[in-house]
Each structure stands twice: as C-alpha cells, then as structure tokens.
C-alpha cells in the first residue's frame, strides 16, 4: 500500500488581523499560520502530527478537510482538491475534533448514528457491521440510549469517534482525540484506533499534545512549528534530531565532588548521588566500566530520555533558524 493519499506542496495560509492603533486607526497585519508545508502521506499510514499551541496544526487539518482555503500552494487528498470537492470528499473522510462534537446534544447517541447513516447513505450491512464493531470495542452498548448531554467527556469522545467511522472513511483526521480523558479511556481509544488502522487500512492523521498517543500508535511523526515541518520521520530519529541525552544515575560510597568522566557531564549532585548526562546515541557500557574503575559505586541506573523533553528541546530550537530537515 504505497499509494499517496495526501499531497501537500508549498502550502501557506495567512490571515489578516486588524489591530487597534490609537482611537480610530487600525493596522493590518498578516499572520502566517502555515508558512510553507510540504509532506505526503501514503494510504494506510498512521501519522502523528505534533507541535506547540498555535503551530498551525488545526489550520492544516482544516485545509485538508476543505473548510479553509490555502493562501498559496497545492493540496490534494485522494487526488481531489479539498475545497472544491469538499462535499464529495466528506463522504470519504472522518473527522474528530476532541473539543467539538458532531453528536446531537439533546438526543440519545443512537439518533446521531441513525442520522449519520442517512447523511452518508451507508448501506445497511456496512452500517450494522461498523456500528457493532464500534459498540463492542468502544464499549458503547450501555450508552446508546443516553442523551449525549448526559455523557461524560470520555464517553462522548468514544461516541464521536464511532460516529466518524460508521461510513468507513479512507482517511481519519483526529484532532486531540484523547484531550481531557482519564488513563483508561485514553487506552481504550488508542487500542481502538490501532485496530481500525490495522483491520481496515484507514489512513490516520493524529494531532495531539499527548506524546504517549504517538508513541503507542504512530510509526511516523511530523513535528510542526511556526507553520513549518521541523521534523518528519520515525520516533527514534526524533531523539537524534533533538540531540537528546540519557542519564546515568550513580550512588557513590561516600559524598564526593562532581565526578570526572570523559564523554559525560554531571548535571546534578545530591549527597552521595550524582546525575551524569551523555548523548543518547553513545553506549552506556564503557562509561559504566570507566566509572567503576575510578570510583567506588554502591548502585547505578540508566534513564532513557523522555520524549517530552526531546520535543520541548525541539520546540525551543525551532525558535532559532532550523538546520536541515531530514526527509522522510
């Protein structure tokens, strides 16, 4: 399945913002929400799309779904122009916005599904099969007859995800699907998304701030900042790109000044315990051997870099001009 589904070429989007300058005067200012995006997504891929607030993530999703017109550049989903073919493409895509709902607030969940069946003209067999699967995997059975306004956030979210999948879309856009959910609900949603991707080959573009979502679901991640893709590749590569470091925590026999060790630097001292940082790409074994030869150790452990830290460093670095972006 190597067919390209989403093509984005040099896409920009700018908004004109009017600011008050003095009592009556207003200045026009152009804000670039997206400053030149290039990427492609193949059919069946599950791509994580991350970036800090205001980086242009939602704007990208809105352009891909055809509700925002790019200022410049070319954008194709399944070979079609999303804005011009919005209604036709809508038939082939599913969208879940974590902070918005497509469900009917005052009516039982079931009604929203029945309506989706009509809206998307879903054949009976397909509808039943998909609804059954969603009900089973998302544990919706007890919720079907509850008015949506009485559902908890986690329940509503599961309901929304099911609603977006009843018509078997080829591509699913998820904008923060796990926002505000408890651990159990998050896990259930993730397991479900993984199943959908594996069983149906649905292409998924997942926007999130929760990096665990990405770690558990996506083999590929795109990091966007200031409207540009600053990283596009596997999760492992992210560590290299972010120049992340692992940490060696040593417990010495007695309290000492910071230890001297080539290839590592002490980042923290606390009594007999010291924290040594070294590049994530380097091996810990020679360091440990060297350390044991020089000092008496009581205990030691290696900590892997937190993906959060890696990303945070990347966001900070993106403030400065970006070096090379590894191609996917």
């Amino acid at each position: 399945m190597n067919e390209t589904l989403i093509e984005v070429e040099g896409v920009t989007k700018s908004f004109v913002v009017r600011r008050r300058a003095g009592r009556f005067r207003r200045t026009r200012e152009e804000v670039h929400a997206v400053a030149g995006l290039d990427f492609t997504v193949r059919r069946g891929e599950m791509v994580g799309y991350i970036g800090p607030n205001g980086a242009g993530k939602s704007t990208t999703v809105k352009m891909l779904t055809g509700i925002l017109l790019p200022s410049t550049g070319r954008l194709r989903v399944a070979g079609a122009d999303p804005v011009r073919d919005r209604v036709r493409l809508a038939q082939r895509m599913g969208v879940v916005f974590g902070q918005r709902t497509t469900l009917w607030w005052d009516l039982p969940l079931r009604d929203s599904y029945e309506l989706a069946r009509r809206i998307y003209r879903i054949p009976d067999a397909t509808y039943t099969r998909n609804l059954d699967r969603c009900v089973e995997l998302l544990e919706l059975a007890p919720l079907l007859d509850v008015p949506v306004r009485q559902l908890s956030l986690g329940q509503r979210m599961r309901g929304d995800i099911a609603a977006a999948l009843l018509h078997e879309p080829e591509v699913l856009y998820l904008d923060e699907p796990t926002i505000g959910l408890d651990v159990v609900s998050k896990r259930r949603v993730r397991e479900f998304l993984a199943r959908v991707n594996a069983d149906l080959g649905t292409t998924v573009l997942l926007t999130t701030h929760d990096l665990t979502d990405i770690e558990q679901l996506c083999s590929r991640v795109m990091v966007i900042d200031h409207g540009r893709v600053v990283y596009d590749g596997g999760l492992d590569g992210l560590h290299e790109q972010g120049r992340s470091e692992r940490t060696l925590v040593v417990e010495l026999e007695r309290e000492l000044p910071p230890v001297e060790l080539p290839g590592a630097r002490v980042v923290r001292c606390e009594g007999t315990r010291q924290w040594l940082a070294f590049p994530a790409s380097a091996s810990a074994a020679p360091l440990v051997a060297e350390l044991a030869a020089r000092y008496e150790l009581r205990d030691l452990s290696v900590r892997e870099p937190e993906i959060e830290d890696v990303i945070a460093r990347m966001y900070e670095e993106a403030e400065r001009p970006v070096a090379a972006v590894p191609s996917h």
Partner: protein
Amino acid sequence: MYAAVCLRSFRRYSTYRAATGARVFTNTVFGFILSYTYLALWQVRPHLGGYDLSAALTYVWIGQGLLSVLAINDLGALSDLQTRIANGDVAVDLFRPVDQQRWWLAVDAGRAGYQLLTNALVPMLVGGLFFHLRLPQGTAAATVATWAATAVALLLALLVSYAMRHLIALTGFWLLDLRGVQLVYYLVSCFFSGFFLPITTFPPLLEAVARALPFVAVFQVPADVFLQRYDATGTLAALGVQVAWAVVLLGLGRLVQSRAVLKVVVQGG
C-alpha cells in the same frame, strides 16, 4: 435524509417540556392583553384597516399562535447555527457531505412542526374559548379551499422567515456577535410583518413601505388568507408574492453562504 433531520429536530424540541409550557403560557397571556387592546381600539374605530371586531380578535390569536412557529421574534432553530458560528463548532458541520442551507431548513422545519402542535394550537384554543373568533366560512368547498390555501401560505411563510433568519445568522461569520442585529431584526420583523397591528391600519406611506418588504409574507399574508380577505385570484397573487420572496431570499442566502464558508474564521482553534 433531510426528513430524518427534521424528525430528529422535532424530537429534540419535544424534550424541553418546561420551555414549551412557558412559551404557551406567555403567548396566551399576551393574547389576552392584545385582545383587550384591540377591543378598545375597535370600539373607537370599528372596521379599522378593513377588519371587523371578530376578524381583528382572530388576527390577534393567529398572531400569538404563529409567533413561535414562524419565529417572528426569535431566530428559531437558527439560534443554534448562530451559536455554532460564534464558538466555531460550525467547522465540524462543514465536514459533513450535506448542504448547510437545506440542513438548517430541515432542522427549522422540525422545530416549526413541533411548535405548531403546541405553541400554536393551545393559545388559539384558549382564545377561541374566551372570544368569538372567525373561522373560514362559506360553502364546504370554499372552506376547504381556504384551509388548504392557509396551509400553503404557512409553509411559504416559514420558508421566507427561514431565509431571512438564515441570512441574519450568517452575518455572524463577519460580525461574531449578533445581539444588536437581532434586536433590530425582531423589532422590524414584528412591526412590518403586521404582527403588532395589520399593515392596512398603517398610514398609506408606511403601508406602502411594508408592502414592499418581505416581512408581510411571513405573517400578514397567511393571516389574511385564513380570514378570507382575498378572492381566489387575490389569494393566488398573495401566494405568488410569498414564492417570489422565498426564491429571492433563499438565493441570496446561498450566495452569502458560499462567501461565508470561504472566509470561515474558525473561532477557538
């Protein structure tokens, strides 16, 4: 599909019984207040605007009955659209493969249907108990024809009303806060639709202005059809005016909608 939307909307409104009760009660109370005002007025000026007392009182109760149904002084189901525009939820509506204007028309029709059965029926029955109201008269054929023409006039009135409210709601894409626009709209709508007083009671110049505006098509026309104030050709002409306004305003709505969708400013991420 739109029928299913309409049905869901009907059910949705029916879940709010207390709101329905409050509206019915308010409409009924206002019916009494206006009835006594009209009684006083018609004692001084019998046949004002060409209505005899019984027709005038019927006019009052038709007005109270249809106020909610035709959403003369509110946005009806379009208040939901307005909210969704203001908070950005309208974005998710656009993901669906549906025509937004028809979608909301279906939603509004469901609302109107529900309110016809509750808000229209109850005040009119109460009014009928306390005052001598005028029902369609004449031969059986004429009566049936009047009821049928009234039904058609009501449907067209809803279309015109919807088209105008849809336009008002769409201005939200540019203005974001609509309270001012709404207030002006409600006043103009109540006044020029003949809801406060039949426009035939206006001074000639004002009446001419009112006739040239679409609001007449929303209330005065269906009321007059019911009160048999037109002959056969007059009825057809009046319905023709309604059709014309519906076509023009819905067309305008489509135009504005396509512009609005292009400039969607999605609020709140």
